[in-house]
């Protein structure tokens, strides 16, 4: 039965939703606006909102001063690589947890998630040392590895929830049809879970793209992704807000566009299983 919604209530709800939406979006909007200001306008008091002399000067400076494409490429490799390898490991893991659970499966799932509760800085020192001794410092391989490990619990959890939705009889049918474990996962489970796998990958790509703690601490010049690119425009003194904003805008643009075009997929992925 539908609830009766009066026009007044509807108007209030709509206004509230817009207000929250704008509140969340405002910092991003402000960053984008600031990137088109001069350094002086950027710190003007009172702040200037829209009526200033729009300039592309900051983008010009940022472009001249650093190699955006190299950072971008590092980001793509690190985010893409860690997501791809993570999913390859998580699919069989989630399969076993969803379809042949043991007494301890629930505990393992919770334990995996609990690793996300640990402050990352707590293991920075040992990981830093391991990276030095293995020669992984400031390499894309090292970052792909560490980000994959960091996001693996989330990937496994998400895939586990999707796999739980697939009827067991279909997997039994393919076993009867002569499929081994490899064929079962490759030809039946994965294609059926494609929407779920896609949204998992998307979310993890975004998480890895935005990850700053490990990328800043474990890179110098060679493997630095866009997070390091942004950080390089912050300095303890001088005027840098406009240039920093320009760098930030350039760094978030690709993933913002990706998110925009796949928002349906993302929302579906995050609410999957909630509504049948």
């Amino acid at each position, binding site marked *: 039965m539908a609830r009766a919604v009066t026009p007044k209530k509807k108007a209030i709800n709509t206004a509230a939703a817009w207000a929250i939406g704008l509140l969340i979006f405002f910092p991003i909007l402000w960053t984008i606006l600031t990137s088109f200001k001069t350094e002086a306008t950027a710190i003007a008091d009172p702040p200037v909102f829209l009526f200033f002399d729009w300039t592309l000067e900051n983008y010009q400076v940022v472009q001249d001063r650093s190699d955006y494409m190299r950072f971008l490429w590092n980001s793509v490799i690190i985010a893409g690589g860690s997501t791809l390898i993570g999913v390859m490991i998580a699919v069989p893991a989630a399969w076993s947890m969803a379809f042949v659970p043991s007494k301890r499966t629930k505990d393992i799932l919770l334990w995996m998630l609990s690793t996300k509760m640990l402050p990352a800085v707590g293991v920075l020192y040992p990981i830093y040392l391991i990276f030095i001794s293995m020669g992984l410092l400031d390499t894309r391989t090292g970052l792909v590895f560490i980000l994959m490990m960091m996001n693996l619990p989330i990937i496994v959890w998400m895939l586990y929830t999707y796999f739980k939705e697939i009827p067991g009889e279909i997997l039994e*049918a*393919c*076993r*009867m*049809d002569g499929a081994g474990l490899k064929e079962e996962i490759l030809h039946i489970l994965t294609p*059926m879970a494609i929407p779920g796998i896609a949204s998992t990958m998307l979310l993890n790509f975004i998480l890895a793209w935005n990850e700053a703690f490990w990328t800043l601490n474990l890179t110098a010049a060679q493997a630095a992704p866009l997070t390091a690119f942004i950080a390089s425009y912050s300095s303890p003194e001088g005027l840098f807000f406009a240039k920093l904003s320009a760098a930030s805008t350039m760094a978030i643009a690709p993933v913002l566009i990706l998110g925009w075009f796949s928002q349906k997929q993302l929302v579906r992925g995050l609410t999957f299983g909630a509504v049948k």
Partner: protein
Amino acid sequence: MGSIRLEQVNKTFGDVTVIPSVDLDIDDGEFVVFVGPSGCGKSTLLRLIAGLEDTTGGRILIDGKDATDTPPAKRGLAMVFQSYALYPHMSVRKNIAFPLRMAKMDKAEQDRRIEQAAAVLNLTDYLDRRPGQLSGGQRQRVAIGRAIVREPAAFLFDEPLSNLDAALRVGMRLEISELHERLKTTMVYVTHDQVEAMTMADKIVVLRAGNIEQVGSPLELYHTPRNLFVAGFIGSPRMNFIEGPEAARYNAHTIGIRPEHIAVSADEGTWSGVVSVSEHLGSDTFFHVHDSGLAESITVRAGGEVGFRHGDRIFMTPREDVLHRFSADGLRLA
């Protein structure tokens, strides 16, 4: 070839014993139906044969070879599930081709078999559709198609018709029977519907609580049920059971008489009672008779033209040659 032999097969889930111990021989080419009330272990038994569940003890032999520990993929059996279990992301053609693809059969032979199966099952026009675009009956046919292309040693059916509406069920029942006539392949079929069991089976296996109550042809079970359970389960409407002095007259603890073996009359007969409900089916009429002093209610089948009504007193005469006698522990007396 497809003979299946179960030797002391048992199955427990945790502390629950679903199947205490089952011995059963299924001959090559036989149509065997497992029937019983829900929870009797018939589906578990089928899944043990399929290999989808591991046995707790005992042996399963397929064509004389021990298959107890063989994975389902290697047993050479095909299964049709209640939910059809089609692959939703594949076209009908790909669904049917899947077992052939898994067997790495060459493409030309695959196509030949798919076309043949599609022709047999009237699916030729639907080969490029997805399962989601088909009706229930068509989906069931695809599931059967997927099972037959591989030419398995035996087919396993797990309540395949219970998701279909009544009219379609009768049609599919005939199709499966015809398929068996044509292929002559062993079929093991699980159902709780005794009409399906009676009409399709060469051999019926009646199960209760994981135990085999009786194995026999449909008519054997109908004419000589081994005990009260089988007597009550096979036949529709149910056999009437009468205890007390009337049974003692026949030297039995309980006597059983089927509704179709009682003659009714308005003025004379062995027993009498009052019609409580009469069900007119056109071809037949069923009377539920109370106040006979024999049992709470006696069901009688008469011709469609017999028109007693609620409250009428009628007389009933059992056919003594087809009267069943049972001992106090429920077993048939010779």
